[in-house]
């Protein structure tokens, strides 16, 4: 038991360190990417190609003076960024990044993920309210309505693969994209569901074109207008982490997770296992040098695949940010309730139909479910 | 095919659905009519196939005469287990065949007769529904299913009598039929309840099987059951004292009169008595009552029919009278003869009614025979078919009516009963009735088709002369009259005339309960007669039912054949007399009747006013009933019922006033009350 806990702690620390670094360079990446999109140079002065820019930014944020508005609700004002930040990190802890490389792999991960994504809204709301600034408050109110509205689309989109797989576990869901369980019906439900998910995720994390809670031109960056210094830095941190977590989830649910691509019906993930050792050893008892090597190779290759896929999605987010104008508020609501929600319902219905009509969908996960032990009375 | 017998019910029901739901949409009389007729045609085909199948398949391998088709479990409550099931046996097959057959013909006739009516599809809806219900009645395998059909045909009868409901008179006639039938239904229900009480089941087969062991012969139980059931039969089959609705039922369209109020529905009572014959066999007294009532009704209706002017009224009373004959046959235990007469009667009476409909059609809604006359040359087809049926009903050899009616008279004559005077009396009355039958049927025929033209001036001015009906109407007439001619010697002839016993043999398993007879005979050793002393073969059916009641017959049976021939000759003679006398009077000396009317005024009025039954019932039942209802309203309803209601309201009001202060409108006060209640409940539960 203590070892378990220790292991969890170590993994957690690694995760935090990696994520913070990743956050720092995601900001850099976004600035560079946006600048390229906009035909300008972008940050390139600090270090080679401006690579030390995030570090400089961090130092600057720490050294800045802390300002707290006089009428602010101080406790909440302080708590808000922490909530926003920690919710995003906790979200990330749910996500496996490679074959056997994960902090947790909860059997109810999808539910917990949804719960955390809705809890993350508290950070924004409280920040806006506790600042006692009209703009901030406006941003907070918009954020509440937006998060509640788009969470529906998000949840429905996630339900589609969940229904097909019959499990709430993230690795189970990623595994249906293996070559042997892939099914053409995925194209008809999972692909639209993935688009739905990405759109909802964009709104949920308040990215452009859904960034109405911030909305510089109207609300002067909205809910964090009154924040400064490190407390301010925590908001973008949460935002980037949230975005990354959403993209990671999307990768798992709709892009085959950490699996390597399949070529000619043969799964590269299995190939790796074949190359480095006996594939049975991969799943067998973890003993011996070869097992360690094969596991490491497998873990490393899958992790790299996963990171690449996630980065791809993040780049799409950035691309959209660079090209799309912001929604008007009523358009936002209309889109959420009248387009995404019905679309999600239709997809869920389709998925249910497919599950009923095609028993081998999702690798036959539905039929292999052992329910006999739960038979009541 | 036996398992598919339900199709015969399903087809008309489908017709009902199509015509009933989409009749207004279809709007095409042709399609409505085709749907209605096709349903019946298919139903008739099912009947024929069922009959053939039963005869050639089941008959050879049967354990008993009964083939049951259980469709679905219907009511399972405690030890009451009722299935929706059908019973195929000779009796139901005979009914099945002639019901669907005659209905089919009448449907075809209706397409012509109703051609100019607005409620065309409605009419066929009702007609199809009626046939479905009638088939449920005759095919049901237990009392409950039969009762469904029983009520269903009553409903259809009501709907069809009041078909032209915009006329208040028609609607009232329908109401009258419905109310009078309710009295009979009440009897049927009580009978069924008693059957269930003593047999623990309503299944006919169970009842047949256990009748011998359950019912003590001669006790009050079978008597009560039989009388209750017979009360229902009097209602449905228009027997005295519940006969009053049938003549008024003629308010409906004429095909309806032909189908429901002559050929099929009104025979349901006869069918029920024949169906439950073990019950009636177990109670000689009940049989006697049935015979008495039947005979009296036959006589009474015949006297009324002699003076009626409305052509349909005459036929209606004639129907009542003939139904009386059938019950007479049932009463003397000759159930197969009753069914035989049901069949032949269906043919010739349907033909007569349709003929009268044709006349009414040709005379443009004129029904009074006083304004007819000399129609024969304008409506030859109608005339000849009508004449054939008249001869048949009068009982002239070799028309169908002769065989059935003569057999009834014969069975009455050889009836073995402990009421020694009864066979003689009943035979004399029945023979007299036969004479009257011939007379009044002759009267209506001659008055309508022969003699002077007595058409009203308006009619002549408007239409010049009557016209023959179209093919759709004539064709069924021809078929029915042909059947009325030949049905007799196809189905049954007495021993001295070829001895064709097709129908009798076919029906024997259903109507002569041999197993029961043995038990029954053994139960009354004191009155038992040895087998060899039983009378000649002609009386078998009668003796089968009443082996233990062998007291006296009307005639001593020395030479059976000679006696039978003599009886038959006598009845043919009576019929001839009736027909010829009426021809002499109504064709040659129509004026003479006026004088006789004055001379015999009291008797004439008595007959013309139908023995004043309607007036009597009005005085004895309707007026006091209305008074009682009024009194109930004034006292019970206004004082007690309203008092209770108003008192309740008053109590509620006072209580509300008292507890009003508790309702402060503050939600937290309510929460406090709630908490108080919770605490009290907790204390009750925890502190014991």
């Amino acid at each position, binding site marked *: 038991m203590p070892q378990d806990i220790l292991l969890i702690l170590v993994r957690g620390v690694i995760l935090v360190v990696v994520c913070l670094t990743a956050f720092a360079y995601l900001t850099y990446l976004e600035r560079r990417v946006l600048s390229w999109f906009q035909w300008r140079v972008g940050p390139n002065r600090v270090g080679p190609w401006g690579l030390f820019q995030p570090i400089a930014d961090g130092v600057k944020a720490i050294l800045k003076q802390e300002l707290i508005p006089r009428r602010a609700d101080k406790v909440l004002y302080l708590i808000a960024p922490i909530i926003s930040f920690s919710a995003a990190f906790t979200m990330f802890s749910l996500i496996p990044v490679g074959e056997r490389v994960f902090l947790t792999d909860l059997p109810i991960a999808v539910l917990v993920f949804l719960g955390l994504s809705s809890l993350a809204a508290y950070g924004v709301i409280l920040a806006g309210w506790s600042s006692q600034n009209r703009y901030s408050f406006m941003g907070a109110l918009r954020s509440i309505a937006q998060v509640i509205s788009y969470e529906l689309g998000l949840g429905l989109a996630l339900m589609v693969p969940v229904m097909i797989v019959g499990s709430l576990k993230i690795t189970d869901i990623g595994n249906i994209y293996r070559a042997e369980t892939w099914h053409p019906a995925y194209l008809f439900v999972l692909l639209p569901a993935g688009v739905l998910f990405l759109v909802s995720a964009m709104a949920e994390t308040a990215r452009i074109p859904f960034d109405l809670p911030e909305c510089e031109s109207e609300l002067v960056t909205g809910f964090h207008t009154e924040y400064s210094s490190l407390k301010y830095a925590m908001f973008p941190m949460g935002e980037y982490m949230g975005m990354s977590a959403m993209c990671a989830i999307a990768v798992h649910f709709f892009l085959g997770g950490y699996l390597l691509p399949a070529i000619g019906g043969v799964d590269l993930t299995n190939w790796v296992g074949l190359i480095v050792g006996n594939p049975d050893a991969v799943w067998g008892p973890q003993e011996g040098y070869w097992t360690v090597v094969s596991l490491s190779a497998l873990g490393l290759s899958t992790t790299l695949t996963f990171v690449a896929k996630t980065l791809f999605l993040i780049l799409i987010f950035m691309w959209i940010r660079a090209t799309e104008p912001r929604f008007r508020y009523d358009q936002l609501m209309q889109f959420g309730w009248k387009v995404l929600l019905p679309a999600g319902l239709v997809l869920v219905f389709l998925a249910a139909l497919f599950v009923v009509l095609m028993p081998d969908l999702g690798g036959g996960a539905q039929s292999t479910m052992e329910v006999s032990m739960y038979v009541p009375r | 095919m036996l398992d598919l017998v339900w199709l015969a019910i399903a087809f008309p029901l489908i017709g009902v659905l199509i015509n009933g739901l989409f009749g207004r949409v279809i709007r095409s009389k042709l399609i409505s009519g085709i749907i209605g007729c096709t349903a019946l045609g298919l139903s008739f085909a099912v009947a024929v196939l069922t009959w053939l199948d039963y005869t050639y398949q089941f008959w050879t391998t049967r354990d008993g005469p009964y083939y049951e088709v259980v469709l679905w479990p219907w009511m399972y409550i405690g030890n009451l287990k009722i299935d929706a099931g059908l019973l195929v046996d000779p009796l139901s097959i005979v009914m099945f065949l002639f019901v669907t057959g005659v209905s089919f013909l009448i449907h075809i006739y209706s397409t012509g007769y109703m051609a100019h009516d607005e409620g065309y599809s409605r009419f066929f809806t009702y007609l199809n529904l009626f046939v479905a219900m009638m088939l449920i009645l005759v095919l049901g395998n237990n009392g409950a299913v039969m009762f469904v059909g029983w009520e269903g045909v009553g409903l259809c009868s009501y709907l069809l009598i009041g078909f032209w409901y915009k006329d208040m008179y028609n609607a009232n006639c329908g109401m009258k039929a419905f109310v009078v039938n309710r009295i009979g239904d009440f009897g049927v229900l009580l009978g069924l309840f008693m059957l269930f009480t003593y047999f623990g089941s309503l299944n006919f087969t169970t009842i047949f099987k256990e009748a011998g062991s359950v019912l003590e012969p001669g006790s009050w139980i079978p008597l009560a059951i039989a009388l209750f059931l017979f009360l229902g039969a009097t209602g449905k089959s228009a027997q005295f004292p519940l006969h009053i609705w049938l003549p008024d039922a003629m308010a409906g369209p004429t095909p309806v009169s032909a189908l429901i109020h002559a050929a099929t529905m009104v025979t349901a009572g006869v069918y029920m008595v024949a169906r439950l014959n073990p019950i009636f066999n177990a109670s000689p007294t009940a049989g006697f009552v049935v015979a008495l009532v039947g005979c009296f009704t036959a006589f009474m209706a015949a006297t009324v029919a002699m003076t009626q002017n409305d052509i349909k009224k005459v036929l209606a009373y004639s129907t009542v009278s003939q139904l009386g004959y059938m019950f007479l046959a049932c009463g003397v235990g000759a159930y197969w003869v009753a069914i035989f007469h049901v069949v032949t009667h269906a043919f010739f009476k349907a033909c007569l009614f349709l003929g009268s409909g044709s006349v009414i059609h040709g005379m443009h809604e004129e029904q009074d025979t006083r304004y007819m006359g000399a129609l024969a040359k304008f409506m030859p087809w109608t005339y000849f078919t009508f004449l054939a049926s008249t001869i048949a009903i009068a009982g002239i050899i070799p028309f169908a009516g002769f065989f059935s009616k003569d057999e009834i008279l014969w069975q009455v004559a050889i009836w073995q009963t402990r009421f020694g005077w009864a066979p003689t009396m009943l035979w004399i009355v029945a023979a007299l009735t036969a004479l009257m039958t011939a007379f009044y049927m002759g009267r209506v025929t001659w008055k309508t088709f022969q003699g002077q033209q007595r058409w009203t001036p308006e009619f002549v001015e408007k239409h010049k002369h009557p016209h023959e009906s179209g093919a759709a109407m004539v064709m069924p007439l021809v078929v029915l009259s042909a059947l009325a001619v030949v049905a007799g010697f196809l189905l049954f002839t007495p021993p001295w005339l070829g001895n064709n016993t097709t129908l009798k043999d076919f029906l024997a398993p259903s109507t002569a309960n041999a197993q029961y007879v043995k038990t029954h005979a053994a139960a009354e050793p004191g009155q038992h007669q040895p087998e060899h002393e039983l009378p000649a073969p002609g009386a078998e059916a009668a003796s089968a039912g009443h082996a233990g009641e062998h007291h006296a017959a009307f005639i001593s049976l020395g030479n059976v054949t000679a006696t039978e021939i003599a009886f038959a000759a006598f009845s043919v003679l009576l019929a001839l007399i009736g027909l010829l006398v009426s021809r002499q009077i109504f064709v040659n000396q129509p004026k003479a009747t006026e004088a006789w009317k004055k001379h015999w005024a009291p008797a004439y009025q008595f007959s013309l006013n139908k023995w004043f039954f309607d007036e009597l019932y009005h005085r004895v039942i309707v007026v006091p009933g209305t008074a009682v209802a009024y009194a109930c309203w004034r006292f019970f309803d206004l004082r007690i019922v309203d008092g209770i209601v108003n008192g309740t309201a008053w109590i509620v009001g006072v209580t509300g006033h008292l507890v009003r202060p508790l309702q402060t409108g503050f939600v*937290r006060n309510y929460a406090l009350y709630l908490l108080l209640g919770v605490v009290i409940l907790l204390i009750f539960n*925890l502190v014991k």
Partner: protein
Amino acid sequence: MSIELIGWWLMAAIAVVSAIGMLSARNPVHSVLWLVVNFTSLAVIYLIHSAPVLFAIQLIVYAGAIMVLFLFVVMFFMSPQARQWLRPALKGQLVLGGILVVAFLLLIIWGVGASGMGIVFNTPLIEGASLATDLTAGAGMGDPRPLGWWLFSNHVLPFELTSLLLLIAMIGALMVARDLKSEGRAIVPETAPVVSDEDDEQEVLA
């Protein structure tokens, strides 16, 4: 002391403190947040009681949706400075209510104590599984399928009816809260005197 028991006591303490905080906070927004804390701690207690799905649902539905709604309403309609404390309540309400509440608590505690339930320990759904192994390996106790199976076999009708209820509530809430007057479709005609407010105020003042 197992990690579960430590967690339980911790969460129980948080739950009680946050409940009291909710009760005594002057600012409704603080009340709402205290309640969110309370619900989250209860969610963890559900997890300890082998109810992982309820844990997640508690987070999603209560903390994530219901309380956000509360927050929304409070923020929208309360000015941030509006603070209130326990002002004199209805006549006798406080006294009687207090007595009853104390009686209620004592009775319940007595009832639970007398039930003898304290002896039995909880059993995990899968033999040998523990919270830690669940979190890492994902097997055993955290399996949501038994609850799903139970919900959709024995209780499927109530479940479906719940969906109906939610739909009805949604429509009802919409109809109650929408501003008919501003939409120009007032149910109460413009000419009708809107007196209920004044009447009510007068009654209360009198």
